[in-house]
């Protein structure tokens, strides 16, 4: 790996990091991070004794949970968003499109869904991205696999699930999200619905390729960009996380564990999964906003499959996004998209309730 030895003339106004040696700072930060992560319990214990509370009381247990969980989730989120920030500097939408262009259905869908995890994506870019992919010869079904996976399986969702429920739930969510994206994309591709793409989109020249070339960037710039992403994302989501953990702490200390069992638990009627998916559609939230709710539901005894189906429905099937997509897709295709994804999420919910 090459170190950037010269100072970039255009960006000398903002020397966030010593440009010659980002590695030293990175290693130092990593050591601090590990040190903090290993001392979470001690930190919570110390804070609790400073306030003068005892863990054996309801209040003490709830407050301890809050002091333990908050730094833990924030630390995990920071690390994962940083790592993904570095990854994002390697994978631009333009590059992803080039990699997906001309892929066949099947393998192309697997590839597209996987790239959906690592490509920087904002739901407000869904339409230009969609058109960009199609015009570069990415098949419709493959494009959909990408569009479904990108918002649903993202680093914030995974980091929060990992921090609050452990790696098993995060892994399940990852596998389930990818499966829904891949299968839905294949189904949409097999249905051959290209004619339901708006005419003006299909009329676009195939050569609308981007004239915009991503400039070569140095490692110092990658690190800087990742730090900016951490600041941006963690800065945006921390209030949700605090609220979620506070809610979780309250539940942890007070609410009886089987509160939700009869409505959303394993013995709930068969319609609890479709109901969860339906309730999720008009709700529009990002992963950070929904994970606290998920934590509250699971804390009260709801079944994991039902809750994850609810979470996926909120993130992947949103009314506002469909209204945006209406600009490029005709109604039958939007309806098919929503239907196929909803069925996929339903299946996932049932299967996991049955297995776990």
């Amino acid at each position, binding site marked *: 790996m090459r170190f950037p030895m010269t100072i970039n003339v255009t960006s000398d106004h903002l020397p966030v990091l010593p440009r010659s040696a980002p590695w030293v700072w990175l290693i130092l930060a990593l050591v601090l991070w590990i040190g903090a992560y290993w001392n979470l319990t001690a930190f919570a214990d110390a804070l609790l004794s400073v306030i003068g509370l005892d863990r054996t009381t309801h209040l003490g247990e709830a407050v301890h949970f809050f002091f333990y969980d908050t730094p833990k989730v924030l630390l995990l989120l920071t690390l994962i968003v940083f790592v993904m920030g570095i990854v994002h500097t390697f994978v*631009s939408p333009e590059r992803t499109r080039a990699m997906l262009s001309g892929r066949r259905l099947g393998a192309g869908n697997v590839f597209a869904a996987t790239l959906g995890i690592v490509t920087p994506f904002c739901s407000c870019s869904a339409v*230009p991205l969609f058109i*960009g992919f199609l015009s570069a010869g990415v098949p419709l079904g493959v494009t959909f696999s990408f569009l479904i996976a990108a918002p649903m399986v993202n680093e914030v969702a995974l980091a929060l699930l990992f921090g609050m429920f452990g790696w098993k739930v995060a892994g399940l969510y990852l596998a389930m999200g990818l499966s829904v994206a891949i299968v839905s994309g294949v189904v949409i591709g097999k249905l051959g619905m290209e004619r339901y793409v708006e005419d003006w989109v299909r009329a676009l020249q195939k050569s609308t390729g981007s*004239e915009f070339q991503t400039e070569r960037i140095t490692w110092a710039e990658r690190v800087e960009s990742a730090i900016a992403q951490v600041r941006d994302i963690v800065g945006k989501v921390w209030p949700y996380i605090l609220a979620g953990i506070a809610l979780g702490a309250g539940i942890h200390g007070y609410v009886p564990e089987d509160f939700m069992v009869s409505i959303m638990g394993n013995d709930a009627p068969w319609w609890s999964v479709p109901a969860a998916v339906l309730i999720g559609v008009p709700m529009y939230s990002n992963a950070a906003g929904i994970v606290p709710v998920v934590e509250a539901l699971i804390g009260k005894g709801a079944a994991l499959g039902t809750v994850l189906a609810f979470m996926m429905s909120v993130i992947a099937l949103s009314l506002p996004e469909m209204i945006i997509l209406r600009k490029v897709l005709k109604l039958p295709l939007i309806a098919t998209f929503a239907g196929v994804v909803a069925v996929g999420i339903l299946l996932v919910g049932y299967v996991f309730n049955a297995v776990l």
Partner: protein
Amino acid sequence: MKNVKVLGSGCSNCKSTAKLIGEVASAKGVQIELEKVEDMQAIVNWGIMSTPGVVVDGKVVHAGGVPARAKVESWF
């Protein structure tokens, strides 16, 4: 006079990008004509896939996310 176009469908990132460009330009004393392009077809015709995109004097200089301040300064 530089012509600057911010391409994006009106999301919050697009607004902060336009604001940042305005700030930097006036800080540097550069006269610019700032234009917001929200029409999807027009955005796509610039070959941009991730918004907000920025076009300075007919050339795409940025796509995807709010640009860093240093990057904006380098345009003027």
